[in-house]
Protein backbone atom coordinates (compact mmCIF):
# COMPACT_ATOMS: atom_id res chain seq x y z
CA UNK A 1 0.00 0.00 0.00
CA UNK A 2 2.75 2.37 0.96
CA UNK A 3 4.72 1.42 -2.08
CA UNK A 4 1.86 2.41 -4.38
CA UNK A 5 1.29 5.79 -2.68
CA UNK A 6 4.99 6.44 -2.82
CA UNK A 7 5.31 5.60 -6.49
CA UNK A 8 2.29 7.57 -7.64
CA UNK A 9 3.38 10.71 -5.79
CA UNK A 10 6.89 10.40 -7.09
CA UNK A 11 5.41 9.78 -10.51
CA UNK A 12 3.52 13.05 -10.28
CA UNK A 13 6.48 15.02 -9.09
CA UNK A 14 8.69 13.58 -11.80
CA UNK A 15 6.17 14.17 -14.56
CA UNK A 16 5.66 17.73 -13.31
CA UNK A 17 9.37 18.30 -13.53
CA UNK A 18 9.71 16.70 -16.95
CA UNK A 19 6.81 18.41 -18.62
CA UNK A 20 7.73 21.91 -17.55
CA UNK A 21 11.35 21.64 -18.54
CA UNK A 22 11.40 20.15 -22.00
CA UNK A 23 14.70 20.51 -23.79
CA UNK A 24 13.91 20.57 -27.45
CA UNK A 25 16.01 19.51 -30.42
CA UNK A 26 14.60 21.39 -33.39
CA UNK A 27 15.29 19.33 -36.49
CA UNK A 28 14.51 22.19 -38.85
CA UNK A 29 14.42 21.58 -42.57
CA UNK A 30 11.93 23.73 -44.48
CA UNK A 31 9.27 26.44 -44.43
CA UNK A 32 7.83 25.41 -41.09
CA UNK A 33 11.11 26.59 -39.62
CA UNK A 34 9.91 30.16 -40.06
CA UNK A 35 6.81 29.52 -37.99
CA UNK A 36 8.96 27.70 -35.45
CA UNK A 37 11.09 30.82 -35.17
CA UNK A 38 7.95 32.91 -34.68
CA UNK A 39 6.66 30.55 -32.04
CA UNK A 40 9.93 30.65 -30.15
CA UNK A 41 10.35 34.42 -30.20
CA UNK A 42 8.80 37.35 -28.50
CA UNK A 43 5.21 37.43 -29.75
CA UNK A 44 4.26 33.81 -29.08
CA UNK A 45 6.72 32.72 -26.49
CA UNK A 46 7.64 29.07 -26.04
CA UNK A 47 9.72 29.97 -23.03
CA UNK A 48 6.70 30.57 -20.84
CA UNK A 49 5.92 26.86 -21.07
CA UNK A 50 9.38 25.91 -20.01
CA UNK A 51 10.33 24.66 -23.45
CA UNK A 52 12.45 27.61 -24.48
CA UNK A 53 15.89 26.08 -24.13
CA UNK A 54 17.05 24.49 -27.36
CA UNK A 55 19.79 21.95 -26.85
CA UNK A 56 21.47 21.21 -30.11
CA UNK A 57 22.78 17.85 -29.12
CA UNK A 58 20.71 14.67 -29.16
CA UNK A 59 22.17 13.45 -25.89
CA UNK A 60 21.04 16.51 -24.01
CA UNK A 61 17.58 16.87 -25.52
CA UNK A 62 14.39 15.05 -24.69
CA UNK A 63 11.97 16.40 -27.26
CA UNK A 64 12.68 15.93 -30.96
CA UNK A 65 10.79 18.53 -32.93
CA UNK A 66 10.80 17.50 -36.60
CA UNK A 67 10.00 20.68 -38.47
CA UNK A 68 9.43 20.53 -42.21
CA UNK A 69 9.78 18.03 -45.01
CA UNK A 70 11.92 14.94 -44.56
CA UNK A 71 13.30 13.60 -47.82
CA UNK A 72 14.59 10.14 -48.61
CA UNK A 73 18.14 11.50 -48.51
CA UNK A 74 17.65 12.84 -45.01
CA UNK A 75 15.81 9.85 -43.54
CA UNK A 76 18.86 7.94 -42.22
CA UNK A 77 20.07 11.11 -40.52
CA UNK A 78 16.75 11.49 -38.71
CA UNK A 79 16.86 7.89 -37.57
CA UNK A 80 20.40 8.31 -36.28
CA UNK A 81 19.48 11.43 -34.34
CA UNK A 82 16.46 9.69 -32.84
CA UNK A 83 18.52 6.67 -31.84
CA UNK A 84 21.13 8.83 -30.20
CA UNK A 85 18.63 10.51 -27.92
CA UNK A 86 18.39 9.11 -24.42
CA UNK A 87 15.20 8.00 -22.73
CA UNK A 88 12.73 9.51 -21.94
CA UNK A 89 12.14 11.13 -25.29
CA UNK A 90 9.15 12.44 -27.16
CA UNK A 91 8.74 13.24 -30.84
CA UNK A 92 6.55 15.99 -32.27
CA UNK A 93 5.80 16.11 -36.00
CA UNK A 94 5.46 19.77 -36.95
CA UNK A 95 3.68 20.62 -40.15
CA UNK A 96 1.89 18.49 -42.72
CA UNK A 97 5.06 17.47 -44.50
CA UNK A 98 6.32 15.78 -41.36
CA UNK A 99 2.89 14.35 -40.56
CA UNK A 100 2.11 12.80 -43.91
CA UNK A 101 4.32 14.08 -46.67
CA UNK A 102 2.20 17.15 -47.28
CA UNK A 103 1.60 18.33 -50.82
CA UNK A 104 4.69 16.48 -52.04
CA UNK A 105 3.73 12.98 -53.15
CA UNK A 106 6.71 12.05 -55.28
CA UNK A 107 9.92 10.15 -55.59
CA UNK A 108 11.90 12.17 -53.13
CA UNK A 109 9.80 12.70 -50.00
CA UNK A 110 9.05 10.40 -47.09
CA UNK A 111 5.30 10.31 -46.60
CA UNK A 112 5.25 11.14 -42.94
CA UNK A 113 7.96 10.60 -40.38
CA UNK A 114 5.94 7.98 -38.55
CA UNK A 115 7.14 5.64 -41.26
CA UNK A 116 10.55 5.93 -39.63
CA UNK A 117 10.18 6.84 -35.97
CA UNK A 118 7.29 6.74 -33.47
CA UNK A 119 5.52 10.07 -33.04
CA UNK A 120 3.71 11.44 -29.98
CA UNK A 121 1.98 14.63 -31.17
CA UNK A 122 1.07 15.62 -34.71
CA UNK A 123 0.69 19.27 -35.62
CA UNK A 124 -1.12 19.82 -38.93
CA UNK A 125 -0.93 23.03 -40.90
CA UNK A 126 1.05 24.35 -43.79
CA UNK A 127 2.61 26.04 -41.93
CA UNK A 128 0.77 25.81 -38.60
CA UNK A 129 0.06 29.02 -36.79
CA UNK A 130 2.12 29.55 -33.65
CA UNK A 131 -1.00 29.20 -31.51
CA UNK A 132 -1.38 25.66 -32.86
CA UNK A 133 2.17 24.94 -31.80
CA UNK A 134 1.49 26.15 -28.29
CA UNK A 135 -1.65 24.04 -28.13
CA UNK A 136 0.35 21.01 -29.22
CA UNK A 137 2.89 21.72 -26.51
CA UNK A 138 0.15 21.79 -23.90
CA UNK A 139 -1.20 18.47 -25.23
CA UNK A 140 2.25 16.97 -25.00
CA UNK A 141 2.52 18.15 -21.43
CA UNK A 142 -0.78 16.47 -20.59
CA UNK A 143 0.43 13.29 -22.23
CA UNK A 144 3.61 13.35 -20.19
CA UNK A 145 1.57 13.80 -17.06
CA UNK A 146 -0.45 10.69 -17.78
CA UNK A 147 2.53 8.56 -18.72
CA UNK A 148 4.19 6.27 -16.25
CA UNK A 149 7.67 7.51 -15.54
CA UNK A 150 10.09 4.62 -15.73
CA UNK A 151 11.84 3.38 -12.66
CA UNK A 152 15.00 1.42 -12.63
CA UNK A 153 14.12 -0.47 -9.50
CA UNK A 154 10.68 -1.21 -10.87
CA UNK A 155 12.08 -2.62 -14.05
CA UNK A 156 14.52 -4.71 -12.11
CA UNK A 157 11.59 -6.32 -10.30
CA UNK A 158 9.78 -7.30 -13.51
Amino acid at each position, binding site marked *: MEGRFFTTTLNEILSWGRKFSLFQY*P*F*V*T*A*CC*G*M*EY*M*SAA*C*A*HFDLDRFGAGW*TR*FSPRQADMLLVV*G*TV*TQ*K*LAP*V*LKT*VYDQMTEPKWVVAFGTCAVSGG*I*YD*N*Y*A*VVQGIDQIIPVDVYIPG*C*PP*RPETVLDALVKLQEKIKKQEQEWRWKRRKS
Partner: protein
Amino acid sequence: MPTRIEREARPGSLLLNMGPSHPAMHGTIRIMLELDGEKILNSEVEVGYLHRGFEKTCENRTYFNLLPYTDRLNYVSPLINNLGYVMTLEKMLGIEVPRRAQLIRVLMSELSRISDHLTCLAAMAMECGAFTVFLYKIKAREFIWDVIEWTTGARMTTSYIRIGGVKADLHPDYQPALEKAISETRGVLKDVHGLLDKNKIFLNRTRDIAVMKPEEAINFGWTGPCLRSTGVYYDVRKAHPYLVYDELDFEVPLGERGDNFDRYLVRMREMEQSLRIIEQVMAQLPASPPELMAEGLEPAQAIKEARRQRPEKPIRLSPNLEGAEKSRYPEILASDPRYVIPPKEDVYTSIEGLISHFKFFMKGHGIRPPKGEVYFAVEGGNGELGFYIVSDGTDKPYRLHLRAPCFHIVSALEFLIKGHMVADVIPTFGSMNMIGGELDR
Protein backbone atom coordinates in the same frame (compact mmCIF):
# COMPACT_ATOMS: atom_id res chain seq x y z
CA MET B 1 30.74 6.20 -50.43
CA PRO B 2 34.04 8.03 -50.34
CA THR B 3 33.33 11.67 -50.99
CA ARG B 4 35.73 13.89 -52.85
CA ILE B 5 37.19 15.30 -49.68
CA GLU B 6 37.89 11.87 -48.27
CA ARG B 7 39.74 10.95 -51.40
CA GLU B 8 41.80 14.12 -51.43
CA ALA B 9 42.56 14.41 -47.73
CA ARG B 10 46.14 14.70 -46.63
CA PRO B 11 47.40 12.42 -43.87
CA GLY B 12 47.47 14.12 -40.50
CA SER B 13 44.52 16.41 -41.07
CA LEU B 14 41.17 16.29 -39.33
CA LEU B 15 37.92 15.72 -41.20
CA LEU B 16 35.01 17.53 -39.58
CA ASN B 17 31.41 17.11 -40.61
CA MET B 18 28.91 19.93 -40.05
CA GLY B 19 26.02 17.67 -40.65
CA PRO B 20 22.65 18.16 -42.25
CA SER B 21 20.93 18.90 -38.99
CA HIS B 22 22.80 21.74 -37.39
CA PRO B 23 21.83 24.68 -35.26
CA ALA B 24 22.49 27.40 -37.80
CA MET B 25 18.86 27.66 -38.70
CA HIS B 26 19.20 27.59 -42.43
CA GLY B 27 17.75 24.22 -43.15
CA THR B 28 19.67 21.21 -44.21
CA ILE B 29 23.07 21.38 -45.83
CA ARG B 30 26.18 19.38 -45.11
CA ILE B 31 29.60 21.00 -44.99
CA MET B 32 32.62 18.74 -44.69
CA LEU B 33 35.85 20.40 -43.68
CA GLU B 34 39.43 19.26 -43.76
CA LEU B 35 41.22 20.99 -40.93
CA ASP B 36 44.71 21.61 -39.76
CA GLY B 37 44.05 22.70 -36.22
CA GLU B 38 41.47 25.42 -36.78
CA LYS B 39 42.48 26.40 -40.28
CA ILE B 40 40.45 25.06 -43.19
CA LEU B 41 42.51 23.41 -45.89
CA ASN B 42 39.75 22.04 -48.05
CA SER B 43 36.00 21.79 -47.89
CA GLU B 44 33.08 20.17 -49.62
CA VAL B 45 29.45 21.16 -49.55
CA GLU B 46 26.71 18.62 -50.07
CA VAL B 47 23.22 19.81 -50.91
CA GLY B 48 20.06 18.04 -51.87
CA TYR B 49 18.66 17.22 -48.47
CA LEU B 50 15.53 19.19 -49.26
CA HIS B 51 15.01 18.14 -52.85
CA ARG B 52 11.26 17.86 -52.98
CA GLY B 53 10.79 17.25 -56.66
CA PHE B 54 9.28 20.62 -57.48
CA GLU B 55 10.05 20.55 -61.19
CA LYS B 56 8.72 17.07 -61.78
CA THR B 57 5.59 17.73 -59.71
CA CYS B 58 4.87 20.82 -61.78
CA GLU B 59 4.74 18.72 -64.93
CA ASN B 60 1.76 16.93 -63.45
CA ARG B 61 -0.29 19.90 -62.30
CA THR B 62 -2.17 22.51 -64.28
CA TYR B 63 -0.81 26.05 -64.45
CA PHE B 64 -3.27 27.27 -61.86
CA ASN B 65 -2.84 24.31 -59.53
CA LEU B 66 0.86 24.74 -59.11
CA LEU B 67 0.71 28.18 -57.49
CA PRO B 68 1.02 26.80 -53.91
CA TYR B 69 4.17 24.94 -54.90
CA THR B 70 5.82 28.16 -55.94
CA ASP B 71 5.12 29.67 -52.51
CA ARG B 72 7.24 27.09 -50.83
CA LEU B 73 10.36 27.67 -52.87
CA ASN B 74 11.93 30.68 -51.20
CA TYR B 75 9.80 30.44 -48.13
CA VAL B 76 10.97 33.61 -46.43
CA SER B 77 9.75 35.76 -49.30
CA PRO B 78 6.91 33.70 -50.75
CA LEU B 79 5.09 36.48 -52.56
CA ILE B 80 8.10 37.18 -54.78
CA ASN B 81 8.17 33.60 -56.04
CA ASN B 82 4.47 33.79 -56.79
CA LEU B 83 5.11 37.00 -58.66
CA GLY B 84 7.95 35.53 -60.71
CA TYR B 85 5.93 32.55 -61.85
CA VAL B 86 2.81 34.56 -62.62
CA MET B 87 4.68 37.22 -64.55
CA THR B 88 6.41 34.58 -66.65
CA LEU B 89 3.07 33.14 -67.56
CA GLU B 90 1.60 36.56 -68.27
CA LYS B 91 4.48 37.31 -70.61
CA MET B 92 3.73 34.12 -72.49
CA LEU B 93 0.00 34.78 -72.67
CA GLY B 94 0.24 38.52 -73.25
CA ILE B 95 -2.07 39.64 -70.44
CA GLU B 96 -2.36 43.26 -69.28
CA VAL B 97 -2.63 43.74 -65.55
CA PRO B 98 -4.62 46.71 -64.17
CA ARG B 99 -2.72 49.47 -62.44
CA ARG B 100 -4.03 49.00 -58.94
CA ALA B 101 -3.07 45.34 -59.05
CA GLN B 102 0.44 46.30 -60.14
CA LEU B 103 0.79 48.67 -57.22
CA ILE B 104 -0.47 46.05 -54.79
CA ARG B 105 2.00 43.55 -56.25
CA VAL B 106 4.87 45.97 -55.71
CA LEU B 107 3.74 46.58 -52.14
CA MET B 108 3.54 42.89 -51.32
CA SER B 109 6.82 42.07 -52.96
CA GLU B 110 8.67 44.79 -51.07
CA LEU B 111 7.13 43.60 -47.79
CA SER B 112 8.36 40.10 -48.61
CA ARG B 113 11.80 41.41 -49.43
CA ILE B 114 12.03 43.16 -46.08
CA SER B 115 10.92 40.00 -44.31
CA ASP B 116 13.56 38.01 -46.21
CA HIS B 117 16.40 40.36 -45.25
CA LEU B 118 15.19 40.54 -41.65
CA THR B 119 15.24 36.78 -41.29
CA CYS B 120 18.62 36.37 -42.96
CA LEU B 121 20.35 38.97 -40.84
CA ALA B 122 18.57 37.84 -37.69
CA ALA B 123 19.91 34.31 -38.13
CA MET B 124 23.38 35.56 -39.04
CA ALA B 125 23.54 37.79 -35.97
CA MET B 126 22.23 35.07 -33.68
CA GLU B 127 24.92 32.70 -34.78
CA CYS B 128 27.56 35.32 -34.08
CA GLY B 129 26.14 35.57 -30.61
CA ALA B 130 23.93 38.66 -30.87
CA PHE B 131 20.72 37.09 -29.65
CA THR B 132 18.98 40.40 -29.02
CA VAL B 133 19.18 41.31 -32.69
CA PHE B 134 17.39 38.08 -33.55
CA LEU B 135 14.52 38.83 -31.18
CA TYR B 136 14.17 42.43 -32.36
CA LYS B 137 14.06 41.47 -36.01
CA ILE B 138 11.58 38.67 -35.59
CA LYS B 139 9.40 41.12 -33.68
CA ALA B 140 9.48 43.53 -36.63
CA ARG B 141 8.74 40.65 -38.98
CA GLU B 142 5.61 39.81 -37.01
CA PHE B 143 4.17 43.28 -37.69
CA ILE B 144 4.86 42.86 -41.40
CA TRP B 145 3.26 39.45 -41.40
CA ASP B 146 0.21 40.94 -39.70
CA VAL B 147 -0.24 43.32 -42.63
CA ILE B 148 0.14 40.47 -45.12
CA GLU B 149 -2.28 38.33 -43.17
CA TRP B 150 -5.04 40.93 -43.09
CA THR B 151 -5.08 41.15 -46.86
CA THR B 152 -4.19 37.67 -48.03
CA GLY B 153 -5.40 35.44 -45.24
CA ALA B 154 -2.15 33.67 -44.46
CA ARG B 155 1.06 34.75 -42.78
CA MET B 156 3.53 33.00 -44.94
CA THR B 157 2.52 30.81 -47.83
CA THR B 158 -0.20 32.88 -49.35
CA SER B 159 -0.74 32.09 -53.08
CA TYR B 160 -2.02 35.62 -53.29
CA ILE B 161 -0.65 36.83 -56.59
CA ARG B 162 -2.71 35.25 -59.33
CA ILE B 163 -2.57 35.22 -63.11
CA GLY B 164 -4.00 38.51 -64.28
CA GLY B 165 -3.71 40.37 -61.00
CA VAL B 166 -4.10 39.62 -57.35
CA LYS B 167 -6.63 37.49 -55.55
CA ALA B 168 -8.35 40.14 -53.43
CA ASP B 169 -8.17 43.85 -52.76
CA LEU B 170 -6.37 45.30 -49.77
CA HIS B 171 -8.12 45.25 -46.44
CA PRO B 172 -10.11 48.48 -45.88
CA ASP B 173 -8.14 49.23 -42.70
CA TYR B 174 -4.73 48.36 -44.04
CA GLN B 175 -3.17 51.81 -43.73
CA PRO B 176 -2.81 52.05 -39.92
CA ALA B 177 -1.41 48.52 -39.74
CA LEU B 178 1.07 49.24 -42.53
CA GLU B 179 2.17 52.50 -40.92
CA LYS B 180 2.75 50.69 -37.65
CA ALA B 181 4.79 48.02 -39.44
CA ILE B 182 6.90 50.67 -41.18
CA SER B 183 7.58 52.59 -37.98
CA GLU B 184 8.43 49.43 -36.05
CA THR B 185 10.80 48.26 -38.78
CA ARG B 186 12.50 51.65 -38.88
CA GLY B 187 12.93 51.55 -35.11
CA VAL B 188 14.39 48.06 -35.23
CA LEU B 189 16.79 48.97 -38.02
CA LYS B 190 18.01 51.96 -36.06
CA ASP B 191 18.53 49.81 -32.98
CA VAL B 192 20.40 47.15 -34.91
CA HIS B 193 22.62 49.71 -36.61
CA GLY B 194 23.49 50.97 -33.17
CA LEU B 195 24.14 47.48 -31.85
CA LEU B 196 26.18 45.98 -34.65
CA ASP B 197 27.71 48.57 -36.94
CA LYS B 198 30.54 49.63 -34.69
CA ASN B 199 30.57 46.56 -32.49
CA LYS B 200 34.17 45.40 -32.20
CA ILE B 201 33.24 41.75 -31.84
CA PHE B 202 30.95 41.72 -34.85
CA LEU B 203 33.48 43.63 -36.94
CA ASN B 204 36.27 41.26 -36.01
CA ARG B 205 34.14 38.32 -37.03
CA THR B 206 32.91 39.70 -40.33
CA ARG B 207 35.28 42.37 -41.67
CA ASP B 208 37.66 41.11 -44.37
CA ILE B 209 36.45 37.55 -44.03
CA ALA B 210 35.45 35.67 -47.18
CA VAL B 211 36.23 38.50 -49.57
CA MET B 212 34.84 38.12 -53.08
CA LYS B 213 36.16 40.13 -56.01
CA PRO B 214 33.72 41.47 -58.60
CA GLU B 215 35.10 39.49 -61.57
CA GLU B 216 35.01 36.28 -59.57
CA ALA B 217 31.48 36.99 -58.45
CA ILE B 218 30.30 37.48 -62.03
CA ASN B 219 32.07 34.31 -63.07
CA PHE B 220 30.24 32.41 -60.35
CA GLY B 221 26.91 33.77 -61.52
CA TRP B 222 26.18 35.75 -58.36
CA THR B 223 23.28 38.19 -58.43
CA GLY B 224 21.38 40.17 -55.85
CA PRO B 225 22.66 41.68 -52.59
CA CYS B 226 25.74 39.42 -52.59
CA LEU B 227 26.83 40.69 -56.02
CA ARG B 228 26.05 44.29 -55.10
CA SER B 229 28.22 44.00 -52.02
CA THR B 230 31.22 43.48 -54.29
CA GLY B 231 30.51 46.72 -56.12
CA VAL B 232 28.78 45.52 -59.30
CA TYR B 233 25.64 47.49 -60.07
CA TYR B 234 23.05 44.98 -61.25
CA ASP B 235 19.50 44.97 -60.00
CA VAL B 236 16.75 43.45 -62.12
CA ARG B 237 14.36 46.15 -60.93
CA LYS B 238 16.55 48.80 -62.55
CA ALA B 239 18.02 46.88 -65.47
CA HIS B 240 14.86 45.24 -66.81
CA PRO B 241 12.07 47.08 -64.98
CA TYR B 242 8.80 45.27 -64.51
CA LEU B 243 5.51 46.35 -62.88
CA VAL B 244 5.80 50.03 -61.89
CA TYR B 245 9.41 50.07 -60.72
CA ASP B 246 10.49 52.52 -63.41
CA GLU B 247 8.19 55.18 -61.93
CA LEU B 248 9.36 54.80 -58.34
CA ASP B 249 12.28 56.61 -56.82
CA PHE B 250 14.71 54.36 -54.99
CA GLU B 251 18.44 53.71 -54.83
CA VAL B 252 20.40 50.53 -55.09
CA PRO B 253 23.05 50.37 -52.35
CA LEU B 254 26.48 49.03 -53.28
CA GLY B 255 29.26 47.67 -51.15
CA GLU B 256 32.97 48.10 -51.54
CA ARG B 257 34.93 45.14 -50.34
CA GLY B 258 32.70 42.13 -50.83
CA ASP B 259 33.26 40.69 -47.38
CA ASN B 260 30.70 39.47 -44.86
CA PHE B 261 30.22 42.87 -43.30
CA ASP B 262 29.44 44.44 -46.66
CA ARG B 263 26.82 41.81 -47.35
CA TYR B 264 25.23 42.62 -44.00
CA LEU B 265 25.35 46.37 -44.65
CA VAL B 266 23.95 46.14 -48.18
CA ARG B 267 20.96 44.20 -46.89
CA MET B 268 20.31 46.70 -44.11
CA ARG B 269 20.39 49.60 -46.57
CA GLU B 270 18.18 47.72 -49.02
CA MET B 271 15.56 47.41 -46.34
CA GLU B 272 15.49 51.18 -45.93
CA GLN B 273 15.07 51.58 -49.67
CA SER B 274 12.24 49.07 -49.64
CA LEU B 275 10.53 51.10 -46.94
CA ARG B 276 10.83 54.16 -49.18
CA ILE B 277 9.20 52.25 -52.02
CA ILE B 278 6.38 51.11 -49.76
CA GLU B 279 5.66 54.67 -48.67
CA GLN B 280 5.53 55.89 -52.25
CA VAL B 281 3.20 53.09 -53.25
CA MET B 282 0.99 53.61 -50.22
CA ALA B 283 0.43 57.20 -51.28
CA GLN B 284 -0.98 55.96 -54.58
CA LEU B 285 -3.18 53.24 -53.08
CA PRO B 286 -6.23 54.67 -51.36
CA ALA B 287 -8.06 52.13 -49.24
CA SER B 288 -11.21 51.13 -51.05
CA PRO B 289 -14.37 51.43 -48.97
CA PRO B 290 -15.62 48.25 -47.35
CA GLU B 291 -18.30 46.33 -49.19
CA LEU B 292 -19.82 45.46 -45.92
CA MET B 293 -21.70 48.39 -44.53
CA ALA B 294 -22.71 47.85 -41.00
CA GLU B 295 -21.64 51.08 -39.40
CA GLY B 296 -20.27 49.95 -36.09
CA LEU B 297 -22.91 47.36 -35.30
CA GLU B 298 -22.32 43.88 -33.94
CA PRO B 299 -22.94 41.11 -36.52
CA ALA B 300 -26.11 39.85 -34.84
CA GLN B 301 -27.49 43.38 -34.58
CA ALA B 302 -26.59 44.00 -38.22
CA ILE B 303 -28.55 40.96 -39.36
CA LYS B 304 -31.56 42.01 -37.31
CA GLU B 305 -31.33 45.51 -38.68
CA ALA B 306 -31.12 44.24 -42.27
CA ARG B 307 -34.30 42.23 -41.83
CA ARG B 308 -36.39 45.23 -40.87
CA GLN B 309 -38.94 46.54 -43.30
CA ARG B 310 -37.71 50.06 -42.94
CA PRO B 311 -34.10 49.92 -41.81
CA GLU B 312 -32.85 52.96 -40.04
CA LYS B 313 -29.20 52.61 -41.05
CA PRO B 314 -27.84 51.63 -44.48
CA ILE B 315 -26.96 47.95 -44.21
CA ARG B 316 -25.46 45.77 -46.88
CA LEU B 317 -23.89 42.55 -45.78
CA SER B 318 -20.95 41.30 -47.73
CA PRO B 319 -21.10 37.67 -48.91
CA ASN B 320 -17.84 37.08 -47.01
CA LEU B 321 -15.61 37.40 -49.99
CA GLU B 322 -13.15 39.64 -48.16
CA GLY B 323 -11.95 41.76 -50.99
CA ALA B 324 -12.77 39.55 -53.97
CA GLU B 325 -16.24 40.90 -54.62
CA LYS B 326 -17.43 41.51 -58.14
CA SER B 327 -17.33 45.29 -57.88
CA ARG B 328 -13.61 45.18 -57.16
CA TYR B 329 -12.79 42.88 -60.05
CA PRO B 330 -11.96 45.46 -62.72
CA GLU B 331 -9.26 46.96 -60.53
CA ILE B 332 -7.54 43.89 -59.26
CA LEU B 333 -7.78 41.35 -62.05
CA ALA B 334 -7.48 41.41 -65.81
CA SER B 335 -10.77 41.04 -67.56
CA ASP B 336 -9.93 38.07 -69.72
CA PRO B 337 -12.25 35.20 -68.84
CA ARG B 338 -9.89 32.57 -70.20
CA TYR B 339 -7.25 33.15 -67.54
CA VAL B 340 -9.11 34.53 -64.55
CA ILE B 341 -11.64 32.88 -62.25
CA PRO B 342 -15.05 34.54 -62.69
CA PRO B 343 -16.44 36.39 -59.66
CA LYS B 344 -18.34 34.26 -57.20
CA GLU B 345 -21.51 36.32 -57.42
CA ASP B 346 -21.75 35.33 -61.08
CA VAL B 347 -20.83 31.72 -60.48
CA TYR B 348 -23.53 31.10 -57.94
CA THR B 349 -26.32 33.08 -59.53
CA SER B 350 -26.07 32.77 -63.30
CA ILE B 351 -25.55 29.87 -65.64
CA GLU B 352 -22.90 31.62 -67.75
CA GLY B 353 -20.79 32.22 -64.69
CA LEU B 354 -21.08 28.61 -63.68
CA ILE B 355 -20.06 27.39 -67.10
CA SER B 356 -17.05 29.67 -67.30
CA HIS B 357 -15.99 28.60 -63.79
CA PHE B 358 -16.37 24.98 -64.78
CA LYS B 359 -14.41 25.38 -67.99
CA PHE B 360 -11.60 27.09 -66.13
CA PHE B 361 -11.06 24.19 -63.76
CA MET B 362 -11.92 21.21 -65.93
CA LYS B 363 -9.10 18.89 -66.83
CA GLY B 364 -7.84 19.50 -70.30
CA HIS B 365 -9.38 22.98 -70.48
CA GLY B 366 -8.49 26.07 -68.58
CA ILE B 367 -5.29 27.98 -69.16
CA ARG B 368 -3.66 26.65 -72.29
CA PRO B 369 -0.77 28.81 -73.44
CA PRO B 370 0.39 28.56 -77.04
CA LYS B 371 3.30 26.26 -77.82
CA GLY B 372 6.66 27.79 -77.07
CA GLU B 373 9.02 28.74 -74.29
CA VAL B 374 9.65 31.80 -72.18
CA TYR B 375 12.14 33.03 -69.61
CA PHE B 376 11.41 35.86 -67.22
CA ALA B 377 13.24 37.06 -64.13
CA VAL B 378 12.28 39.18 -61.14
CA GLU B 379 14.46 40.49 -58.33
CA GLY B 380 14.09 38.01 -55.51
CA GLY B 381 15.47 38.37 -52.02
CA ASN B 382 18.68 36.69 -53.11
CA GLY B 383 19.05 37.87 -56.66
CA GLU B 384 17.68 37.12 -60.08
CA LEU B 385 14.85 34.66 -59.70
CA GLY B 386 14.09 33.33 -63.16
CA PHE B 387 11.44 30.95 -64.44
CA TYR B 388 11.83 29.05 -67.71
CA ILE B 389 8.59 27.48 -68.92
CA VAL B 390 8.20 25.24 -71.97
CA SER B 391 4.63 24.77 -73.05
CA ASP B 392 3.25 22.24 -75.51
CA GLY B 393 -0.24 23.65 -75.85
CA THR B 394 -1.93 21.59 -73.13
CA ASP B 395 -3.04 22.77 -69.71
CA LYS B 396 0.04 21.43 -67.91
CA PRO B 397 3.55 22.81 -68.34
CA TYR B 398 5.84 20.53 -70.30
CA ARG B 399 8.89 21.71 -68.38
CA LEU B 400 9.23 24.29 -65.67
CA HIS B 401 12.70 25.25 -64.52
CA LEU B 402 13.61 27.66 -61.78
CA ARG B 403 16.79 29.69 -61.90
CA ALA B 404 17.50 29.68 -58.18
CA PRO B 405 19.77 32.57 -57.14
CA CYS B 406 21.17 30.97 -54.03
CA PHE B 407 22.27 27.85 -55.94
CA HIS B 408 25.00 29.89 -57.59
CA ILE B 409 25.85 31.76 -54.43
CA VAL B 410 26.30 28.61 -52.34
CA SER B 411 28.38 26.95 -55.06
CA ALA B 412 31.04 29.53 -54.23
CA LEU B 413 31.14 28.61 -50.54
CA GLU B 414 33.96 26.11 -50.93
CA PHE B 415 36.02 28.74 -52.68
CA LEU B 416 35.30 31.43 -50.10
CA ILE B 417 36.14 29.68 -46.86
CA LYS B 418 39.47 28.20 -47.91
CA GLY B 419 42.21 29.38 -45.63
CA HIS B 420 39.91 30.74 -42.95
CA MET B 421 39.08 29.30 -39.57
CA VAL B 422 36.20 27.05 -38.63
CA ALA B 423 34.40 29.84 -36.81
CA ASP B 424 34.39 31.94 -39.99
CA VAL B 425 32.19 29.44 -41.76
CA ILE B 426 29.16 30.47 -39.75
CA PRO B 427 28.94 34.20 -40.55
CA THR B 428 29.94 33.50 -44.17
CA PHE B 429 27.22 30.97 -44.59
CA GLY B 430 24.77 33.19 -42.77
CA SER B 431 25.46 36.17 -44.99
CA MET B 432 24.79 34.12 -48.10
CA ASN B 433 21.15 33.62 -47.17
CA MET B 434 20.82 30.04 -48.25
CA ILE B 435 17.20 28.97 -48.39
CA GLY B 436 16.76 25.22 -48.71
CA GLY B 437 13.54 25.30 -50.67
CA GLU B 438 15.12 27.40 -53.39
CA LEU B 439 18.51 25.71 -53.39
CA ASP B 440 17.26 22.18 -53.72
CA ARG B 441 13.89 22.89 -55.28
